[in-house]
């Protein structure tokens, strides 16, 4: 599902139509369309260099598009409309602060520019991001994760209706990631819109209600997360180890069944590349072959869909393997 250019953007927190941006001979965005409904978390996915950060910069008014339009809350956002950003909080690229100032003083500095900030908000946010105990320390002594937390606090400073977060999990420890996810989910439940760019599929999968996938400066898919997972789904069945070859043969009409992954207790999991709506057919196929599964799960294979849509090569030698690795001495 991709909205067509010209589709009404009423009811959207953010509507982008035909956005184009070049840096010299490099085309960063090539007619990008986005439709971000209000009050949810929108995951903006794409491989490195797909145009995510360029989009973020455009949405935050840092750079100007060559063509196309941006609407914030149903109204055009043009050059000179800087006050429209009072409703937007942003963390673009790396968090940026005065290194010689404390976290608290940095937030005060941020609060002195742009949208007004309510009294007590800074202490509230320092508490929220878990930096209250270190709030008086200079930011130059902070780790990347702590700076990231402070950046998120900075984005939330004016209690914005729309939050733009560029790779917000960068540098965060697992507890920080969980806390960030909970915070963003809470914000969405309270009616705010959260637009999160990321190349980490697991993070987006756990966080986003709607996903937009960008490749080479264009939107290649935009849909609710549930629909994406359903379309890209798989079913996992648990059978006895000695039945794996027989089960693979019985399930082969559904597609390529992966090698069994043993649990070490005499049972293995097999992955069948079909959506959960065909679960009954899978169980029947096994039963017809004289086997009874001892467990069943549905899973969405977002990774496969992402690789397919973005044209990225599927790693053959393990996730994250670079093409030239085999040639390295």
């Amino acid at each position: 599902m991709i909205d067509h250019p010209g589709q009404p953007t009423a009811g959207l927190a953010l509507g982008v139509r035909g956005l184009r941006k070049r840096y010299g001979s490099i085309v960063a965005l090539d007619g990008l369309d986005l439709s971000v409904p209000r009050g949810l978390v929108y995951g903006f996915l794409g491989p490195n260099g797909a145009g995510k950060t360029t989009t973020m910069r455009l949405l935050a008014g840092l750079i100007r598009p060559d063509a196309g339009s941006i609407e914030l809350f149903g109204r055009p956002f043009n050059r000179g409309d800087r006050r429209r950003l009072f409703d937007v909080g942003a963390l673009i690229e790396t968090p940026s602060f005065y290194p010689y100032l404390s976290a608290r003083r940095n937030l005060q500095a941020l609060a002195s520019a742009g949208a007004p900030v309510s009294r007590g908000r800074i202490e509230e946010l320092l508490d929220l991001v878990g930096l209250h105990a270190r709030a008086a320390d200079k930011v130059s002594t902070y780790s990347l994760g702590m700076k990231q937390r402070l950046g998120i606090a900075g984005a939330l400073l004016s209690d914005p209706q729309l939050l733009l977060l560029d790779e917000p999990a960068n540098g965060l420890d697992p507890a920080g990631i969980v806390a960030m996810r909970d915070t963003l989910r809470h914000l969405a439940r309270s009616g705010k819109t959260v637009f999160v760019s990321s190349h980490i599929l697991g993070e987006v999968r756990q966080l986003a209600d709607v996903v937009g996938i960008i490749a080479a400066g264009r939107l290649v898919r935009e849909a609710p997360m549930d629909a994406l997972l359903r379309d890209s789904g798989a079913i996992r069945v648990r059978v006895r180890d000695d039945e794996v070859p027989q089960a693979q043969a019985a399930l082969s009409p559904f597609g390529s069944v992966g090698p069994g992954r043993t649990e070490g207790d005499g049972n293995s999991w097999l992955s069948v590349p079909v959506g959960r709506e065909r679960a009954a057919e899978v169980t029947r196929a096994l039963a017809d072959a004289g086997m009874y599964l001892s467990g069943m799960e549905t899973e969405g294979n977002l990774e496969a869909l992402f690789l397919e849509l973005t044209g990225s090569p599927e790693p053959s030698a393990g996730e994250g393997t670079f093409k030239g690795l085999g040639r390295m001495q």
Partner: protein
Amino acid sequence: MRLLLDQIGRLLRRPASWVTFGLIAGLMAFVFIVIGATAQTLEGAQGSAAVLAILTFPGAYEAVLGFLVGLGGLLAVVYGAAIAGSEWTWGTLKNAIARGESRAGYVIALFAAIALVLALGLVLAMAVGVVAAFAGATLAGIPTDGLSDSATLSALPEKLARGWLGITEAGAIGFAIATFTRSQLAGIGVGIATYFGEQFSTIFFPDIVKYLPFHAAEAVIGVTPGFGDGGPGGPPPAQLSADVALVVVIIWLIGAVAFSAAVTQRAEISG
């Protein structure tokens, strides 16, 4: 106003502000006290009268101010470039713009804060310089009766204001260069090169150079910078009259700030 006040607070907390102040105040105190302490060895030497005149009040007031505007101009270029450049290098300008702050407004507020901090620094450095000159005069055994010369003291506020304009204009040049280069390091480097480039150009284009920003800034107080009354280095270079220099300084000052605002207004901000 909240932005300006916050900018001033940030600058007062910034190590670069105190390092710059410490450098000029410390160097000046050192020079005046060393001259005073070694005055007896200068007796009879060529130019010794001019050197000792530096410590003689009320002329010492002008010597201090000349020193501040001369060396202060170079330090102001570096300071202005450091402050403006760091906004780009650290990405803090990006934060303010993304919060909906006016680009031109932010730059003007930042420069206004620099100008006010320079005013504070100039007054404090002047006080340090006068104390150092008094100490040097005492060490040299030079009478300090002229310390309370009413004519000089009544003219001092205007000269300080002129000196402040000169230093602020030099700071604006550094500020504009760093804004243009969008880098702290490049801004400081190009700023220093521009300063010395202008000094060396005196040899080739003396009639043009006097209208350039750093020469005009030094001429604005009406004394030869460095060592008032001509100093020991021979005749002073050709310079504008103080009033013409004042007009030229204001033009350079406004031009540099307007240029910085325009560059920021049009800039594509990344990083």
